C-alpha cells in the first residue's frame, strides 16, 4: 500500500496510506480523524473513512471498551474502502494500543502518547506487562511522543490550566500527523478559529497544541522525512466531502424539491440514524418540517398522516425502531399513500451493536409486516450514493403511492468520501399530479370520486388531498372495495386487492435501467452485492482482474422488486457468490426466485468486509469450479 513512487529531498511520495486514530472516548478521536479527512479532501486526495466508536457515551476512561477510533484511507487514485489494515496507528493511551494494534499491517508505524503509559493506565487496559518492553511491538516502527506534557507546555503561556490543556492533546496529534503527511494547515487553523470562537481560551489552546504538534514533527529527528500522498486523479469537477447520513438528508431535501412538495419528517432519536433528523432540522428554510415524535410508532404514523395531507412524509430509524414502524408501514400499504421509511441498519437483534454496522434488516424490510404487504426496497451503496438513493426511493413512493423502505447502514452513515457534485438542474422531475376531478360516472350520469380507481399503467390510485373540493373520501386499514374504496369484506374482493397491491409493486421494475454487469461478462463467477459491500467488492474485483482472473459483478440498488433481467443474468454464470453483512438474506431470496446456485459470503462482526475477504471468496469460488 505504501509503495514508494518517488523520492524528492526529504519528502517521500506514497500513493496511499491508511491511518487509524485511536484513543479514549473522551479524547476527541472522531474530531481529529474528521479534520484530517477534511484537510486531505481539500488537498485533493481520494479518501474513505471508517469511524468506529463504542455504544457508551463515556465508557470507563482508559479501558479497552472505551476506545474510540477513526480510520481514514487517503490516496492519489480512486479508492472505495477505508483500507483493510492501517499502516499508521496513533494510540493515545495503552487501551487504544491494545484495542487496535492487531489491525495494524506488518511493519506499520505506531505513534504513542507515551505520557499515558504509566502503571495505572496499563492496568486499566489489562496489560499484565508493559507492551513497550515485552516485545509486543516487535516488527513495528514505534514512535514515542510525550503528547500530554508537550500540549500542557504549549498551552501554559496562555494561562490554560494543565487539566484543561489536557483536552487539547488530540490537536497535538493532529498537528503531528498533518506534518508527517504534508497536509495543508490553514484550513484546520481556520476551522479551529470558527469552531471554538465562543471560547477564546479553548480556541487558543487548541491552536497552540496543533502548532506544537506540527513543529514537533518538523524539529525532531524522529521524523527525518515526511510523506506526501499526491492528489488523486479524480474526474474534473467541484467536490465536497460527504458522509452517508448528510448525503441522505440532502437527498430527501432534494427529493421534496424535485417533487414540488413540502417534506414532513417524523423521527425518534436512535443511533446511527439521528444525524438525519439533526441535518433535516437545519433546513427549515426549504419548508422542511421535522417533528421529534414521542416514539418510533408516532414518528411513522405522523409521516403517514402528513402524506395523506399532501406532503412527502418520511420517517427515519435504525435497529429496533424498524420493528416499531411495521404497523404504520402496513397501514401505508393499505392506504396506498407515498411514505418513506429510512433504515440505517446496525448490528442486531434488539439493541445489538448500536454503533456498529450490519446489513441484516433486508428480511424485515422484505417480510416484516402482517398480511400480504409487499413494498419496494431501495438500498444505497456508498456515502454519496445515499443522495441519489433517497431521490429514487421518493420517486417510487410518489409515482406508485406506496411506502418505500430505503436501506443504508452505519458504515455508510458515518463514513465519508469525496463527492463530485451533480448539476442540480439535471436531477429528475419526480412530481406527480394530485387528483382534483371526479373519475367515475354513475348510471344516472352523476359523477363521483373513487379513491381506489387505479391508473391502468402503474396501478397507482389517485392522490386527492384534503382541501380539494368535491374529492372528500375516507381511507383506512380495513379492506376496501376495489374502485370505490368503501369497506368491503367479500372474499373475492380481498383476493383481488391483495393481488392488485402485489402487482403494483411488481410493475415498479419496469422503470429500471438494464442491470449493469461490471467486470467480465463471460466469467464463471459473478459477485452479487447490495448496499455498502460495494466498496470492498469493487476493490476485490479490481484486484482479481489485475491478477488476470475473470470475474463479474452485479450490484443491486433495487432489492424489491428485483430487476426483471436479474434472473437471466445470474443464470448465465456457473457460480454466484453473495457477500452480505448478515447470514445470507439476499442469497436466500435469489436462490428462491431464480433457482441459481448462489452461495452466501457472510460477515457479522459489526465491521464492513475488507477487500481481501471478498478477493479470497472469489478465489475460493473459482477453485471450486476448476
Amino acid at each position, binding site marked *: 500500500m505504501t509503495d514508494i513512487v518517488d523520492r524528492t529531498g526529504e519528502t517521500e511520495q506514497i500513493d496511499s496510506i491508511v491511518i487509524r486514530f485511536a484513543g479514549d472516548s473522551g479524547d476527541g478521536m472522531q474530531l481529529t480523524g474528521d479534520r484530517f479527512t*477534511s484537510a486531505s479532501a481539500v488537498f*485533493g486526495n481520494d479518501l474513505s473513512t471508517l469511524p468506529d466508536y463504542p455504544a457508551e457515551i463515556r465508557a470507563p476512561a482508559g479501558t479497552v471498551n472505551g476506545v474510540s477510533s477513526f480510520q481514514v484511507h487517503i490516496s492519489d487514485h480512486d479508492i472505495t474502502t477505508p483500507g483493510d489494515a492501517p499502516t499508521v496507528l496513533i494510540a493515545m493511551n495503552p487501551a487504544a494500543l491494545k484495542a487496535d494494534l492487531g489491525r495494524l499491517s506488518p511493519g506499520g508505524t505506531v505513534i504513542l502518547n507515551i505520557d499515558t503509559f504509566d502503571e495505572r493506565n496499563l492496568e486499566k487496559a489489562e496489560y499484565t506487562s508493559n507492551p513497550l518492553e515485552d516485545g509486543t511491538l516487535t516488527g513495528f516502527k514505534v514512535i514515542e511522543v510525550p503528547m500530554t506534557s508537550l500540549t500542557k507546555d504549549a498551552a501554559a503561556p496562555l494561562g490554560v490550566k494543565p487539566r484543561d490543556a489536557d483536552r487539547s492533546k488530540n490537536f497535538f496529534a493532529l498537528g503531528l500527523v498533518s506534518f508527517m503527511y504534508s497536509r495543508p494547515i490553514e484550513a484546520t487553523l481556520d476551522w479551529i478559529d470558527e469552531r471554538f470562537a465562543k471560547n477564546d481560551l479553548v480556541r487558543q489552546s487548541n491552536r497552540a497544541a496543533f502548532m506544537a504538534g506540527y513543529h514537533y514533527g518538523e524539529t525532531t529527528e524522529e521524523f527525518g522525512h515526511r510523506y506526501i500522498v499526491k*492528489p488523486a*486523479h*479524480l*474526474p*474534473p*469537477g*467541484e467536490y*465536497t*466531502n*460527504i458522509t452517508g447520513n*448528510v448525503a441522505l438528508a*440532502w437527498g430527501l*431535501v432534494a427529493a421534496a424539491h424535485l417533487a414540488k412538495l*413540502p417534506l*414532513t419528517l417524523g423521527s425518534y432519536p436512535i443511533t446511527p440514524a439521528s444525524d438525519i433528523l439533526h441535518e433535516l432540522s437545519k*433546513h*427549515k*428554510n*426549504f*419548508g*422542511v*418540517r421535522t*417533528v421529534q*415524535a*414521542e416514539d418510533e*410508532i*408516532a414518528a411513522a*404514523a*405522523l*409521516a*403517514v*398522516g*402528513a*402524506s*395523506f*395531507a*399532501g*406532503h412527502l*412524509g418520511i420517517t427515519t430509524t435504525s435497529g429496533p425502531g424498524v420493528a416499531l414502524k411495521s*404497523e*404504520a408501514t402496513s*397501514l401505508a400499504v393499505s392506504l396506498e399513500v407515498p411514505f418513506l421509511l429510512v433504515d440505517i441498519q446496525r448490528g442486531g437483534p434488539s439493541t445489538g451493536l448500536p454503533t456498529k454496522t450490519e446489513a441484516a434488516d433486508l428480511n424485515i424490510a422484505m417480510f416484516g409486516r402482517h398480511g400480504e404487504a409487499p413494498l419496494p426496497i431501495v438500498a444505497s451503496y456508498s456515502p454519496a450514493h445515499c443522495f441519489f438513493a433517497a431521490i429514487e426511493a421518493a420517486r417510487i413512493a410518489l409515482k406508485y403511492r406506496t411506502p418505500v423502505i430505503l436501506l443504508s447502514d452505519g458504515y455508510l452513515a458515518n463514513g465519508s468520501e469525496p463527492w463530485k*457534485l*451533480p448539476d*442540480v438542474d439535471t436531477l429528475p422531475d419526480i412530481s406527480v399530479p394530485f387528483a382534483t376531478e371526479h373519475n367515475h360516472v354513475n348510471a344516472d350520469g352523476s359523477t363521483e370520486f373513487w379513491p381506489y380507481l387505479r391508473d391502468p399503467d402503474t396501478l397507482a390510485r389517485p392522490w386527492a388531498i*384534503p*382541501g*380539494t*373540493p368535491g374529492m*372528500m*373520501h*375516507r*381511507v*383506512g*386499514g*380495513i379492506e376496501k372495495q376495489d374502485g370505490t374504496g*368503501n*369497506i368491503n369484506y367479500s372474499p373475492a374482493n380481498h383476493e383481488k386487492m391483495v393481488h392488485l397491491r402485489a402487482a403494483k409493486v411488481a410493475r415498479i421494475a419496469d422503470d429500471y435501467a438494464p442491470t449493469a454487469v461490471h467486470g467480465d461478462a463471460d466469467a464463471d463467477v459473478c459477485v452479487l452485492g447490495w448496499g455498502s459491500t460495494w466498496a470492498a467488492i469493487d476493490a476485490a474485483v479490481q484486484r482479481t482482474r489485475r491478477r488476470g482472473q475473470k470475474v463479474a459483478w452485479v450490484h443491486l440498488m433495487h432489492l424489491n422488486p428485483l430487476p426483471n433481467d436479474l434472473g437471466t443474468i445470474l443464470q448465465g454464470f456457473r457460480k454466484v457468490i453473495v457477500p452480505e453483512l448478515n447470514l445470507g438474506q439476499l442469497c436466500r431470496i435469489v436462490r428462491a426466485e431464480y433457482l441459481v446456485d448462489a452461495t452466501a459470503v457472510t460477515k457479522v462482526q459489526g465491521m464492513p468486509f475488507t477487500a481481501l475477504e471478498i478477493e479470497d471468496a472469489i478465489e475460493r469460488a473459482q477453485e471450486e469450479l476448476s
Partner: protein
Amino acid sequence: MTDTSVRLTTKKDWASDQEVRWCPGCGDYGILQAVQFLMPELGVAPENTVFVSGIGCSSRFPYYMNTYGVHGIHGRAPAIATGVAVARPDLDVWVITGDGDALSIGGNHFIHALRRNVNLTILMFNNRIYGLTKGQYSPTSEVGKVTKSTPMGSIDPPFNPLAVALGAEASFVARTHDLDRKHMIETFRAAHDHRGASFVEIFQNCNVFNDGAFDEVTGREHRPANLIDLKHGEPIRFGPDRERGVVMGSDGQLRIVDVAEVGEDAILVHDAHRVDPSLAFALARLSTDDHSPTPFGVFRSVERPDYGTEVGAQLAGAAAKKGPGDLSSLLRSNGTWQVTEQM
C-alpha cells in the same frame, strides 16, 4: 388549493353515503348526529375538514362523515392527526377515539398530542368497556368489573380521563354525554373553536356490553341530583332547586354542600380560564364513581401557542433569515474544492 370562502352547508352535506353500522341503540348514533348538526354552524367546508380515528367501535366514525377521513390504527389517531395538522395548519382536524384507544394502546400519543397542543379536536367516547372485541374491561372500567377477561373482577384501578388530560397540560378539557344533544353540540363547538388541542370526554352508553354504565348520572331522572353543569364565571350549583353547591375547604379540598348552610357567597365560582390547572383537576376528581354528583361542561380552556402555528413560524423565521432554500447552495454548504484536468 384550499377554498377559503365558506359556502353554506346543511347537515346532509356532512353525512356520507355509507350505511351506519353501529349496534341498534348505541350511544354513538347520538354523538354522530350532534356532530353532523354542529358542522354546518362552524363556518368550515367539508373539504377542509379531516376526521382521523384509531380502532374500536367509535373509530368507524370517519366513514360516516362526508369529509376527508383516515381510519387509522389502534391508538395512533393522535399521531396520524398530528402529521395532518403539522403539514396542513389550514385544515380542521378532528380525532375520534375511545377509552381503550386513547388511554390504553394509544396513551402515549394521546398525552403528547395534548402536551404539544396540536390543533386537534379530540372526542373520546368513554363507555368503560371494549366493545369491538366483545366485552373486555377497559382502562376506565371500575375496579371489580366482571368481564370476559376479568371473570373474578378487574383489579386494575381506572384512569380518570380528564385528570390524565390535565396532567398532560391539555389547554382545553371538557365532558359531555350522549343523551344530551344540545350539551354535546355546545361542548363540541367550544372545543372546535379553541385553538390548540381540545379534549372532550363523552360518557357514551354501550348498550350491548356495558349498558347503563352512566345512568345514575346522565339518566333523565338522575340529572338534577347528579349532573353538575359547569359554566364559566358562575357559582357551581346543582340540584333540582340548585340547592347544592361546591365549596373549597381551607385544606384545598372540594366539597359538596347545601347552599343554605354555607351561604351563596361561599360557593366556588367556576373559572375555566385559570392558567393554574389545579381547580380543573379538583373538579375532574370531584366524583370517583358513576353514581354521585359529576361535573360536565368545560373544565379548562386556556390560551397556549398551538404546535402547527409554532412549526410554521419557525419555517417562516428560517426562510426570512436564510432566504428560501437553494439546492445548489445546500450541496456546497460544507465547503468544496475543484479538481481540474491538470491534476
